[in-house]
């Protein structure tokens, strides 16, 4: 899926519009993030489909934030799938990235990947390769909602008990940019326990994902204990959608997230995908 992306990246680099393109590269036999700055050296550019579609995705937006902090005047290109673009839009509203300094190059995800992710919109607004796949509903959330209250509590307590507190979910999350994290603050969380305070540690993270999580699924992939974090954060997103008619990354440009706004819930129904 990379030829059309390479063509577009070459155009952008040659025109001088971008200082570099943050994408994925096949190097040393592995796929990893890479900043391409030479338009003649794009042969090993890939889109993160090593054996299955999307099996080697990385939180590229997070690296963009690092660039922006040190080089705020430079413009960078970045590879985006549907979720990455939702991330960019949300990071723009949270003032972590400047939309004038980011040039996304989009790819649409195949149906197989969309279903694996239960993605509502597996394509960005504009993309140079791939075809629009159908959005999927959150079957994993429906399954947990199907248990009674006691069953749900038992389910989640058992999942959280597996946690080894590696902070992988937080470290890999492209939307986590706080310099002081609640999960490391001993005034708020009982630090020093493994598994960490059950269920407060995970419920704290889930609440912090409200209005922030763009459903990329990297947290699930980073968890060595296979805790279904994504299902929990999808549920949180559903609740925010019900109460505030808002899903991060789907709102119109410039629309502030509801949790950053003082006042009542909006009267109108926003541009929400369901």
């Amino acid at each position, binding site marked *: 899926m990379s030829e059309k992306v390479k063509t577009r990246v070459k155009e952008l680099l040659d025109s001088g519009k971008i*200082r*570099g393109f943050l994408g994925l590269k096949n*190097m*040393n*036999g*592995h*796929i*990893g*993030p*890479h*900043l391409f700055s030479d338009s003649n050296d794009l042969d090993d550019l890939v889109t993160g489909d*090593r054996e299955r579609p999307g*099996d*080697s*995705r*990385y*939180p590229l937006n997070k*690296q963009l934030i*690092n*660039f922006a902090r*040190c*080089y705020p005047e*430079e413009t960078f290109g970045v590879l985006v799938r549907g979720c990455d673009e939702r991330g960019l839009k949300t990071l723009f509203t949270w003032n972590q990235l400047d939309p004038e300094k980011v040039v996304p190059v989009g790819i649409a995800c195949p149906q197989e990947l969309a279903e694996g992710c239960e993605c509502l919109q597996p394509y960005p607004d504009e993309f140079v390769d791939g075809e629009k796949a159908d959005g999927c509903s959150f079957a994993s959330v429906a399954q947990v909602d199907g248990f009674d209250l006691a069953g749900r509590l038992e389910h989640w307590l058992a999942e959280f008990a597996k946690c*080894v*507190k*590696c*902070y*992988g979910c937080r*470290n*890999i999350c492209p939307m986590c940019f706080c310099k002081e994290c609640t999960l490391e603050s001993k005034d708020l969380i009982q630090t020093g326990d493994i598994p960490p305070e059950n269920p407060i540690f995970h419920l704290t993270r889930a609440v912090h994902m409200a209005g922030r999580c763009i459903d990329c699924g990297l947290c699930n*992939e*980073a*968890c*060595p204990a296979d805790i279904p974090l994504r299902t929990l954060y999808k549920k949180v997103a559903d609740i925010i959608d019900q109460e505030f008619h808002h899903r991060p990354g789907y709102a119109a440009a410039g629309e502030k997230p509801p949790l950053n706004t003082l006042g009542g819930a909006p009267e109108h129904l926003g541009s929400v995908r369901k």
Partner: protein
Amino acid sequence: MDYKTVLTTCAYCGCGCGLYLEVLDGEAISTIPSKTNPINEGKLCVKGWNIHEFVQHPKRLTKPLIRKNGILTEASWDEALDYTVSRLKEIKEAHGSDSIGFLSSAKVTNEENYIIMKFARAAVGTNNVDHCARL
């Protein structure tokens, strides 16, 4: 602006998880697990996630130090090695081989651990040798 992602192996334990060190302008700023590594499959433990921190940490030892009059002072490699050899010989003469213990590291290679084991058993004559995985 010099940015690179350097594929490397975690130095902390024998698992050998694959990861990328994110290096911006010569400074290792973060760690990203390697998605395609068959050992860790994109996951890391808390030590691996923070491997970038010690690489350029200001508290890292950069020169040999010898305690003189209770204060650690910089010394040359020759001075440090001479001091170590002469003191180990003295202690072995006075108190016997088993009065000396060796602590190696799980972060070094098998070959390096073999050397320290051989040194402890054959050169000094004690089996008091272990490493940090047992602590």
